[in-house]
């Protein structure tokens, strides 16, 4: 009786395992599809998009070279890295300081700030899209550095909210001890508080990095398509959005190249990314 139940369970697990394997193939197929077609000549892709490249259709790295020449994806990858890294550093530094201040100092100013940050989380981008773009124009923020300032502003809501949730749980005694030892608030903050905030800082950094890296509309509107500062999503949109004869091969190659950095990042920091996304979901 017992062994029968045991073997039933084992059989069940094998079935589930096979099912999950099939599902894995389904999940990976779209990525394989573009990778596969990125090695085929552009005239062969639409004729038979599902077959593997053969002697006739295989073109090696031609699509990649064409794509890179035409679109300037290389510089876009550079600018995506620049904007993402600078924005995330600014966000971590300044929003954690703000969160610390408004949690520790109880005043009208603090609570007004807190409510405004929380409120901004529920406002969709479309609400401020047009006015923000013209404001950025007036104040000459339509540059990569300006973008980083705007990202600091947009990221402030969620980041301040998450940091202040954590600051509340830090016992006051530690900071008071530092103060008595003669530290000023800045020294106390960077010497004592910020190291304790590190786990939250990692979460906030990951959430913001994923958002800034993938964001399309803000760079598209603020930096636009006619400058040298295009980010990856903007370049991909330009390549496909432009009418006329599309180079399908180059498109596939560019899609592959824009996915690679994020996959590498994911595979190396998987644990933090998954934890961060779950924490962000539960709190946001």
């Amino acid at each position, binding site marked *: 009786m017992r062994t029968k139940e045991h073997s039933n369970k084992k059989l069940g697990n094998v079935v589930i395992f096979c099912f999950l394997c099939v599902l894995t193939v389904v999940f990976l197929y779209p990525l394989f599809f573009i990778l596969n077609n990125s090695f085929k000549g552009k005239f062969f892709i639409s004729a038979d998009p599902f077959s593997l490249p053969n002697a006739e259709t295989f073109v090696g790295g031609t699509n990649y070279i064409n794509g890179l020449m035409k679109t300037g994806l290389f510089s876009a990858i550079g600018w995506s890295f620049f904007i993402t890294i600078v924005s995330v550093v600014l966000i971590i530094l300044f929003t954690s300081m703000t969160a610390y201040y408004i949690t520790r100092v109880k005043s009208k100013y603090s609570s007004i700030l807190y409510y405004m940050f929380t409120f901004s989380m529920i406002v*969709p981008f479309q*609400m401020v899209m047009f006015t923000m773009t013209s404001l950025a124009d007036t104040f000459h923020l339509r540059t990569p550095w300006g973008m980083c300032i705007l990202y600091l502003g947009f990221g402030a809501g969620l980041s301040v909210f998450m940091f202040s949730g954590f600051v509340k749980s830090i016992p006051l005694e530690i900071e008071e001890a530092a103060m008595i030892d003669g530290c000023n608030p800045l020294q106390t903050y960077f010497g004592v508080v910020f190291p304790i905030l590190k786990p939250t800082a990692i979460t906030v950094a990951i959430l913001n990095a994923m958002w800034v890296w993938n964001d399309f509309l803000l760079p598209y509107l603020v930096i636009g398509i006619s400058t040298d500062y295009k980010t990856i999503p903007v370049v991909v949109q330009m390549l496909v959005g432009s009418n006329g004869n599309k180079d399908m091969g180059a498109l596939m190659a560019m899609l592959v190249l824009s996915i690679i950095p994020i996959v590498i990042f994911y595979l190396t920091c998987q644990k933090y990314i998954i934890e961060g996304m779950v924490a962000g979901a539960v709190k946001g």
Partner: protein
Amino acid sequence: MQKTLKKYLVIFTVPTLIAFSFAFIIPFVMGLYLSFCEFATVKNAKFVGLQNYITAFSGNQKFLSALLFTTAFTVVGIITINIFAFGIALLLTKKIKGTNIFRTVFFMPNLIGGIVLGYTWQQMINAVLLKYETTIVTNAKFGFWGLVLLMNWQMIGYMMIIYIAGLQNVPTELTEAAKIDGATSWQTLTKVTIPMVMPSITICMFLTLSNCFKLFDQNKALTNGAPMNKTEMLALNIYNTFYGKPGFEGVGQAKAVVFFLIVAGIALLQLRLTRSKEVEQ
């Protein structure tokens, strides 16, 4: 300590506040005001009262049809994504070999940006439809189900992770006790497991709701509203009103305010639901 920290107000809060004003506070207030104005640029606005809101809801603005399409898509999206994600989470908590690898793969699409994803799926769906000598932009049904497919592919992994975290918190004593009492696995699932993971279900429902409802990038990349704006969602409709129709910027802003009110309503509903649940427990 508060007093000394108070003197540092400028250093601690002003940098964030300046950026926040540029990105959010000023544009938000201006946006509210401009929704009652006729304007082409922000500087030459003329007050017109509620006219923009009335125009926004007229038939040729396609705002209502976009709302309908968005709602239909969101409902189908919530149901399918959550059922699949919950199902997979159940399988992945059965201590099967390779669970970590499966989890890694299923979660991955979630990290790829909407524009890149949208074009990837556009290429693939068109490749399939080519066999029937058509493309995704010829029929609104293709666009609708294509979008559902894409969002399932993207969001199942994310929701699955949240469900797994919830399922791992269900004490095994409970499910084992149910089994000893003679409950079938279906009964254990519906009477014990699901009530226990209700908080995760609420989170996932609202996360899919807001992600589907506010969708823009994927919509723009996959069909860009074609054919004839029939697959245009709210965010894309607002975008097209702003940047595709000169002279209708005010109407676009009015639509954006309506959009904001709906999204804010959903968020408040979520807050009330989670608060009242917390009290019950």
